[in-house]
């Protein structure tokens, strides 16, 4: 059984790699198997890891407020499913509106607490560190980078006049950061490719130990 599994995995890996040449029936086959099986898997996953433990089991075991509060998400879920009935499908907009409103509300708090405050905090560094010029340069880059990059995202003024230079510095530093991130991520992707090739050569063909 294990051997059959290896052969199927190797065949499907080659089918997916065949896309590098061009779209072909083998890629289509692997693509459709992948999408179909992953969608089915996610359906089961959502049931057993979300719906069952967080709704059905919790409803059975909870008492009082903890039990009855579950009616709200259940109702919203049912409302969402009403989309399949065209005549009353519009009711599903309530559930969608609730989800969007919830996301926006939570987004404000998590955005301020998770991104804005830590970024402000990280910028509170001395411009001059006595006796340590390396750290002074490091802090200078950090301060200039943060302030000029923030200025780039100021939309109320055209990038002209006095703010043109700081904005140019800001976007240049953003691009430098992107370049570094690009190289770092490409290295990570290469390790994924190596992992797949190792599977083919080691697990399937036994050409490497």
């Amino acid at each position: 059984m294990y051997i059959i599994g290896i052969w199927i995995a190797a065949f499907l890996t080659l089918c997916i790699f065949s896309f590098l040449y061009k779209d072909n029936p083998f890629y289509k086959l692997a693509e459709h198997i992948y999408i179909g099986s992953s969608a089915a898997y996610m359906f089961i996953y959502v049931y057993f890891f979300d719906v069952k433990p967080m709704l059905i089991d919790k409803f059975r075991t909870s008492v009082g407020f903890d039990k009855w509060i579950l009616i709200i998400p259940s109702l919203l879920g049912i409302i969402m499913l009403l989309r399949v009935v065209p005549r009353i499908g519009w009711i599903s907009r309530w559930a969608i509106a609730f989800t969007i409103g919830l996301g926006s509300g939570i987004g404000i708090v998590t955005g301020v607490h998770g991104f804005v405050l830590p970024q402000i905090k990280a910028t509170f560094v001395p411009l001059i560190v006595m006796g340590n010029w390396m750290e002074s340069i490091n802090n200078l880059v950090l301060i200039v980078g943060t302030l000029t990059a923030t200025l780039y995202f100021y939309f109320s003024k055209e990038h002209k006049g006095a703010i043109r230079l700081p904005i140019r510095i800001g976007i240049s530093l953003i691009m430098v950061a992107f370049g570094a991130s690009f190289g770092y991520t490409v290295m990570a992707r290469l390790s994924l490719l190596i992992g797949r090739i190792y599977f083919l050569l080691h697990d399937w063909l036994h050409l490497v130990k």
Partner: protein
Amino acid sequence: MFVLIFLFHLSPSHNVKVFDTPNDKGGAVYIEWELSADDSIVSCYEVLRSENNVDYSVIATPLPHSNRFDDTDVKNGKSYWYKIRAVAGTDSSESAVFGPVHSSAQWFHHKRWNALVLSIILCGLALWYIMEAKKGKPLFIRRIAGLEAVDDAVGRSTEMGKPILYVMGLSIMGDIATIASLSILSRVAKRAAMHNTPLIVPCYDPIVMAACQETVKQAHLEAGRPDTYDESKIFFLTSDQFGYAAGVDGIIVRDKPGAIFLQGTFYAEALIISETGASVGAIQISGTPAITQLPFFVASCDYTLIGEEMFAASSYLSREPVMLGSIKGEDYSKLIIMIVMGIGILLATISQFGLLRGVAEKFIDWFTMV
């Protein structure tokens, strides 16, 4: 020697303090104690709990030399009593009983005042400028290249007789990037409806799919073309990351869209999709707040909306005064944040020379409270 051993009695833990864990959703009690005077020979401390102050059971055995424990297995409103037992070999000694104590949920996290104050300032500024916009005050927003190209991309697709592909990314409906992406989709769908150009929207999340269907349907109504709305073009693909990428790649090479919009939260599939899009010669406009994926979009797409630009997109495209007001409010919030940063940097620098050290510490502490 024998007499000494016989008379030895392990010193118990003192000053046991038990209280409801602060700033939480309830269901937790915090216990701390002073270490036994014989801590050097203590092998472990045992936390004993009772629900009636009679029958005690060991609920935890923290490591030696530890003096705190968070009991997260309690029910809100129920009384509990605690004591700490110091154990050294076969010898043990118990502290005085502490209790009863109840756990409860707190409505407000007292160490998040900074987040509350900042949120009020940011939201207040946005609301102020929205009101100003409603009064008819003209508000200027600078040109954003990627967004200017939206209409061109739709027009190009129409001229070529090819469909438009709109990819919402991998996030759920609660994500701000997905919400922003819906606004851009609305504009694209409206333009596509006006030109009668097919719009394909493969979705990763079923709820996002439902929201996309509603958005596109509304856009067709606004364009005066409800008859051309085709729900089957906005469909669920799969909730698996690379399954989704494989599916979108398949759509790109088979339908050969003239324009591809990649707007939302993306992960490792970003480059796979955008590279395939580039290979079929489609004009690509991407936008994401995902910092790790932006470099790939910058490299492989014609236009890229970097983070905040994507969030500003809805206001920019609609040109509605109310939405422009929110962008204006955001801009002034950024100015305030930059001023605060400047003050913090100044205080951190001069405090190095012994000046305003107390003020600097208080200022920085306020922003670092967690």
